[in-house]
């Protein structure tokens, strides 16, 4: 019983917070503004609690597994949720249904925790559903906007479709091997055509969730329509969680079929990077822009995953950590500006530096980090992903990835150019930043600058992933 509490600690804390919010909602005893502060404190506690009493082991006949690496991955997600709650303060304060929003978000987070920890295809499927359905409701949270509903509709339909595909794949696997356990499946795989087909179904479902090209079509619309809190949750927390699980699935469950999935990943990575980058160039809306940029980033994550070794695991976890800081900082700036001025277009950012130098530097740091320019952490993250991809010795692949960094630099520079260089007679007026927003931005900025230069972070993750 004691083991149950220590091993499932992360999930239990999140569940406790969800119930607490439920009671608060029912009792209606707390004012709206202090409620948000309370939630932020709870999320901080949730993040800090992730560092204590960590053990590895399995529960329920290894249906649920945990290890230091898995706990670390969960901590990244908790950190991201905490930062989102800070960064989107302005929007959250205006939301009528604040407890519900966080209940949904935390349910999704709970789903992701179980998903990362799953040791069985059944629990994996259940937790994946738990991780995606609340997000669709979150996408619908701008209740007055039609686009928000449209985004939610697209999201739920594509989620349902991908779940169907996933279930089909799982049933094929079960038919072939007669088991759903992650530990037992690899011994029964031999790479037959049917198994490859089952694998393709599974991979397609992952591709839907990760918005890998050609399964990315829902992404931009959902990102644009949803409130930025949801968008940043989708692009950071969801993506990160699915990337972690994809690694587990490929490295553990489908290890015998490495040759098959390596080729598939290479192809998917290349088209994802190229298409994501090329579409990002044309975007005007900052949310759509970040949507395509995050598609391209997923392409880079696939480069790291393709390595199939612990270098790949380290690089991906490290990159997701950095990506959390960078992408959230970019979304945070967009959120503040959108909430206070209603402007979401890149052209509106012209002349921003004159009025809001702090926001501009945070934005520049975030975008340079996404582009992979030192001294930001993104440089190290990208480089290690590419190094991991190079372990297989395919230099054409690596060259294409490296060349994609040029295209991505081009469009990130577009935003920086608008903010720093372009003249504008009527720039966005000086924005007064909420203390918690400022705190979150400073955390993100510090993360962007320090996670790369402090090399022990990487070495620590590497020691976990061995």
């Amino acid at each position: 019983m004691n083991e149950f509490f220590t091993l499932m600690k992360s999930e239990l804390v999140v569940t406790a917070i969800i119930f607490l919010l439920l009671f608060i909602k029912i009792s209606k005893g707390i004012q709206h503004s202090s409620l948000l502060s309370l939630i932020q404190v709870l999320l901080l506690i949730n993040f800090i609690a992730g560092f204590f009493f960590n053990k590895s082991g399995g529960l329920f006949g290894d249906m649920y597994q945990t290890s230091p690496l898995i706990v670390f991955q969960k901590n990244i997600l908790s950190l991201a949720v905490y930062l989102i709650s800070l960064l989107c303060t302005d929007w959250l304060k205006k939301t009528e249904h604040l407890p519900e929003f966080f209940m949904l978000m935390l349910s999704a987070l709970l789903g992701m925790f179980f998903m990362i920890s799953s040791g069985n295809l059944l629990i994996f499927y259940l937790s994946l559903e738990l991780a995606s359905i609340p997000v669709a409701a979150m996408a619908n949270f701008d209740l007055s906007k039609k686009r928000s509903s449209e985004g939610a509709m697209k999201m739920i339909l594509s989620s349902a479709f991908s779940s169907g595909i996933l279930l089909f794949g799982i049933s094929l696997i079960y038919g072939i091997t007669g088991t759903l356990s992650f530990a037992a499946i690899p011994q029964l795989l031999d790479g037959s055509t049917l198994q490859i087909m089952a694998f393709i179904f599974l991979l397609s479902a992952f591709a839907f969730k990760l918005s890998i090209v050609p399964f990315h079509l829902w992404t931009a619309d959902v990102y644009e329509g949803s409130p930025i809190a949801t968008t940043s949750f989708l692009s950071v927390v969801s993506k990160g969680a699915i990337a972690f699980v994809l690694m587990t699935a490929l490295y553990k469950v489908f290890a015998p079929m490495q040759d098959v999935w390596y080729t598939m990943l290479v192809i998917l990575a290349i088209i994802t990077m190229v298409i994501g980058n090329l579409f990002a160039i044309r975007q005007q809306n900052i949310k759509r822009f970040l949507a395509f940029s995050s598609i391209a980033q997923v392409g880079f994550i696939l480069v790291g995953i393709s390595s199939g070794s612990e270098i790949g695991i380290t690089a991906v976890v490290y990159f997701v950590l950095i990506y959390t800081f960078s992408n959230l900082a970019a979304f945070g700036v967009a959120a503040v500006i959108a909430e206070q001025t209603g402007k979401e277009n890149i052209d509106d950012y012209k002349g921003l530096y004159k009025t809001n130098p702090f926001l501009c530097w945070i934005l520049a740091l975030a975008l340079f980090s996404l582009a992979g320019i030192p001294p930001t952490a993104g440089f190290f993250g990208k480089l290690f992903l590419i190094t991991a991809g190079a372990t297989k010795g395919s230099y054409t692949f690596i060259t294409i990835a490296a060349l994609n960094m040029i295209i991505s630099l081009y469009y990130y520079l577009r935003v920086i150019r608008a903010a720093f260089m372009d003249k504008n007679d009527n720039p966005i007026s000086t924005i007064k930043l909420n203390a918690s927003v400022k705190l979150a931005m400073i955390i993100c900025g510090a993360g962007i600058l320090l996670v790369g230069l402090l090399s022990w972070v990487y070495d620590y993750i590497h020691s976990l992933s061995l």
Partner: protein
Amino acid sequence: MNLLLLIGLPLLTAVAVLLSRNKEQVKWISLLGSMAQLALAFMLFFIFRNERATGNVTQMLFEQNYPLFSSLNINFHFGVDGISVAMILLTSFVVVAGVLVSWNIEKMTKEFYFLLLLLGMGAYGFFISLDLFILFFFLEISVIPKYLLIGIWGSGRKEYSANKLALMLMGGSALILVGILGLYFAAGRSFDIMELSKATVSLSYQHILFPLLFVGFGVFTALFPLHTWVPDGHSSAPTAGSMFLAGISMKLGGYGCLRVATYLLPEGAKEFANIIIILSAIAILYGAFATMMQKDLKYINAYSSVSHVGFSLLGIGMLTQTAITGALMQMVSHGLMTALFFAVIGMIYDRTHTRMVGEMGGLMKKLPFISSVFFIVGLCSLGLPGLSGFVAEMTIFMGSWENTDAFHRIATIAAAMSIVVTAVYILRAIGNTVMGPIRNESYLSLKDAAWNERLAAIILVVGILAIGIAPGWLNDLLRPAAEEIMNRIAGN
């Protein structure tokens, strides 16, 4: 001597600039910081000479090695040989001069100096790195300052130029990245230059990796036909930006071509030497002729930079010890000369508000100091004996002539011919701007250089003269290091 000072001091200066309250503080802190860097560079130079004089022949001196990303075998490995010391000296000269000529920057002064100092720090870090990963880090770190310096404080089509520069250099970096990853895996997972210099990389690998690395670094140093960012970038950048770009940043590429591509992949270098020679000969001639057509002073210097940097690539391609020494001398000489050239152009532009040769004339009468410096730098550019340009180019030609076959001889002669063209455009530019009658009435009220401009010019002129009159010290510094590289190429 602790080499980390070379990174720490500029970083400290930059942070101090960020924390300072007003423009005056910013300027004085930057000046003090850059003066301290100059002093540090001189200290390094003298300590290095002492060490060598006392018979310490270790290839790299003052080495330090700290594990950084130990699981990937990436180390914070530093050390200097003669080449690095010469480059560090060059950098410190240009940094001081750059800080001085920017004294009157009004727009966002703090940010300007911060980025400038950051750019300098990147160069110091690059020249002392002995680990390819760290080297690449410092090479790339300059992208942000360069882009913002040109884009915010530049002139003309600045956004276009800044974009072009950032993207082309990023392209070069992408090739370098693939190249160093190739080396990393080919040599058993090590980025360490000293280890890689002992490792044997198979021939077929060398033939793939060498072009990647050489072209990658070549983009930085205006290898033909990838030089197109040079004219736009240099002409759009603010004065100090141009000085840093041409004086320091282009040298990063040349240094990389030699230290990384040629030194670590000698077989590849032999295989592709002829192509390098052809490309650099084209660059030399093309640059010279293109300069003839320019009317804007900044474009004149930018295109002539393409031509002059071509000489150092030619020297590398010749693969003889003398030629490589000459190539390195040319890098130092060109760095000082081109920085001074841009500084003078900036000074003239601040007064006349034009950079068009045709609109000026007779500046010597009103601006004797600036015009004399312009004269000196022009003569240096066309290779007058007694100035640094002559020494460097002469050494390259002597080294090239050691190759006795027709191909090398023809390339050498072709390159040497460009000097005539250089003389034509330099003399014409000088004649039209500083000589003759004053064409514009408003020039009568111009004031000659202020103290900061004089100091900047004097520092750089001293450097040019020190190489031109007594090249021995530079030769002593560079030749042993070039010998190490030649030994590796010759296979000993």
